[in-house]
């Protein structure tokens, strides 16, 4: 165990016993009992991992993979059967919307109550109160009972209190999805700040996009065992590949821009063009120049945005993606404008591809709108013998072990 690890989990296993009826429990206590009267559910088996301080780790996995159990163990509300864990610093966790809140209390009272549960005195909470109120934006509702709040408002209050306690380790279980877009963006900005200060974040989400954007690392739990740990992108890729193999459902590929998007940055159209002529064109040969011309509007209140394009095979395998945020290209569009992605030398082999374009906030986290190009990209056969999807730069080197070493290099 490294001394610097913020979270260290070793050999954690947890089994739940499900009893068919209450007598099963009593029967098992009897010394003459021979066979078990329960059904064992192995929520976690032999999970080991470490999280360094200042890292943001995403926890992914299907339903029943043990994610919630692991988060509960780290929170300290349930305990493993074998193994153990250690966490450096104080922990704040948001396991459920409104957990730890009393519905009859006002928002203000709940802030103090929540602080008290985390062992923070009334006086200390009072000094942080303005910060919490400011962040939650619940000024006019703060003295109303919590049962009059919407779920989004409860989420805002919960998140605001949790981050205001300035924990060294913050554990969040899939609750950010409740808040509205503005608040989600605020949370994400707060999380970025939080990461910058060297604090640790442990984050569980079903949105691979969120995990990829917020987290450095990811942990993939599969039916109670640790399937993979590594950088967020490769783990989510592995995970989504498996998911796509399992089920090929239609996502929101064909979302249309409707009235809902009018005040948000949104895409009007995305067209494939010939780089040489500037004319629309959908059929290309490998090696030709392709442009993806995106027409977008920046909504009523222009802001800095990120534009991204992903080239996908029909089975949603992403061959290539680019975003202005990753390439550090600022996109400042006043009201309406065009952004064009230039691919001067197409390196994709024959087939039909979907190009998905998206407009996101400046961190590339929150996606305002996405749209596929008006036509799918069709790459026509270049050479009959090409196999695969990519035309990669490559060289050959042949070494022979005879007396006169024959070396041949041929550039393709």
């Amino acid at each position, binding site marked *: 165990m490294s*001394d610097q690890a913020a979270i260290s989990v070793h050999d954690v296993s947890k089994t*739940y016993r499900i009893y068919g009826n209450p007598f099963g429990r009593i029967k098992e206590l009897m010394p003459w009992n021979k066979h078990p009267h329960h059904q064992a559910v192995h929520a976690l088996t032999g999970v080991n991992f470490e999280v360094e301080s200042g890292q943001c780790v995403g926890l992914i996995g299907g339903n029943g993979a043990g994610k919630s159990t692991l988060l509960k163990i780290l*929170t300290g509300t*349930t305990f493993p059967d074998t193994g153990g*864990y250690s966490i*450096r610093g104080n922990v704040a966790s948001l396991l459920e919307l409104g957990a730890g809140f009393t519905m*009859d209390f006002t928002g203000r009272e709940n802030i103090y*109550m929540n602080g008290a549960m985390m062992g923070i005195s009334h006086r200390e909470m009072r000094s942080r109160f303005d910060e919490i109120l400011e962040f939650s934006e619940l000024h006019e509702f703060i003295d109303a009972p919590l049962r009059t709040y919407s779920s989004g408002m409860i989420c805002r209050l919960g998140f605001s209190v949790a981050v205001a306690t300035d924990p060294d380790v913050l554990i969040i279980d899939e609750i950010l999805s409740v808040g509205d877009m503005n608040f989600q963006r605020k949370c994400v900005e707060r999380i970025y700040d939080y990461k910058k200060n060297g604090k640790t974040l442990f984050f569980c989400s079903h949105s691979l996009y969120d995990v990829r954007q917020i987290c450095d690392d990811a942990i993939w739990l599969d039916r109670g065992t640790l399937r993979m740990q590594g950088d967020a992108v490769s783990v989510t890729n592995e995970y989504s590949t498996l998911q796509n193999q399992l089920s090929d459902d239609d996502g929101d590929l064909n979302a249309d821009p409707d009235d809902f998007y009018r005040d948000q940055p949104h895409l009007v159209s995305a067209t494939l063009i010939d780089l040489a002529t500037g004319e629309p064109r959908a059929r290309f040969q490998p090696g030709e120049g392709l442009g993806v011309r995106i027409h977008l509007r920046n909504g009523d209140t222009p802001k800095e945005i990120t534009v991204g394009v992903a080239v996908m095979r029909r089975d949603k395998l992403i061959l290539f993606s680019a975003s202005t945020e990753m390439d550090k290209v600022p996109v400042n569009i006043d009201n309406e404008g065009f952004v064009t992605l230039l691919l001067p030398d197409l390196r994709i082999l024959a087939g039909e591809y979907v190009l998905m374009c998206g407009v996101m906030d400046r961190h590339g986290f929150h996606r305002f709108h996405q749209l596929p190009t008006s036509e799918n990209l069709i790459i026509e056969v270049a050479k009959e013998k090409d196999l695969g999807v990519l035309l990669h730069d490559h060289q050959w080197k042949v070494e022979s072990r005879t007396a006169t070493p024959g070396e041949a290099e041929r550039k393709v």
Partner: protein
Amino acid sequence: MTTPELLHTYDAATNPKGMLRHLTPLIGYPGVVASNTTLIANFFRRDLLGRFRGSFLGLFWVLVQPIFLFAIYFMVFGFLFAPKGQTGAASVEFAIYLFGGIIAFSSFSESTTRSCNTVLENGNLVKKVRFPCELLPISNILVALIVYAVGAVVLLCVGLSLGQITVGAHMLALPLVALVHFTMCLGVGLLLATLQVLVRDTVHLYTIAQQAWFFLSPVFWPYSMIQGKLLDYGLGQWSWLIEFNPLYGLVQSHRQALGFGHDHIQMHRYVMTPAGEHVPMVDGHHVVESLPGLWYHLGLASAWSLLFLLIGYSFFMSRKNKFSDLV
């Protein structure tokens, strides 16, 4: 940046098992209570307000309930079932005796019954938030103590105005009695809360057991009456069993600290001879027996309350880690 110290660790291999291992943290329990006063105050407020939420009179019911209860006892036992030949102040005596016992007993029974479900009712907290859940029964006990205090004030007002209650140094013992009462409720409450998580039938069984406990405790009857009954059946040597009831000392010390002594109500049909034998009382006999005082009863109650706290606390703490899986 400095590395924060290791604050949260757990290892299944080194985690103590068994009830006795969980006894030692009892020393730290008052400390846990003291450092979480804000939390307890919040729970207390929630429980108190929650009980009267939505009602028109709200907290006023805390006041109304004991007054009406007392008025009923006053009418029923002061007039309807007044002892033969007694009228006026003397007949009220029994009503006051009864009421003093009832407020003490019902405060105990209410707080312990509510404690049964306290972990289950706060299941969402226990599952999702890390906090010292051994504090959960406390708020119920405090609410019941408030109800008790209102009843005690009513009793004192009526008792003093009718001359049935004497003001004296014994009233200084009231806070001490309340502390012993609190400890007893907490011990039993922790025990029942844990049992209820493991076996959901506990609360139903306990409600029935309480009915029996009510009549086994000196609420309705004075000591001399039961002793007389036992002597009738020739079971005089078993009269110590009356005092073996954990609530005996507690109810008696409540009454004595309120200034309504043990000696007020005496239904003696036997008197003790100088040789220590009980003989049937005939006209002209004087009761020479002096009954034990407040300190005797309080000592008895303290011993029981500490025993219950030891058992309840260690049982609760030894099962605490399992709560979130069982609720």
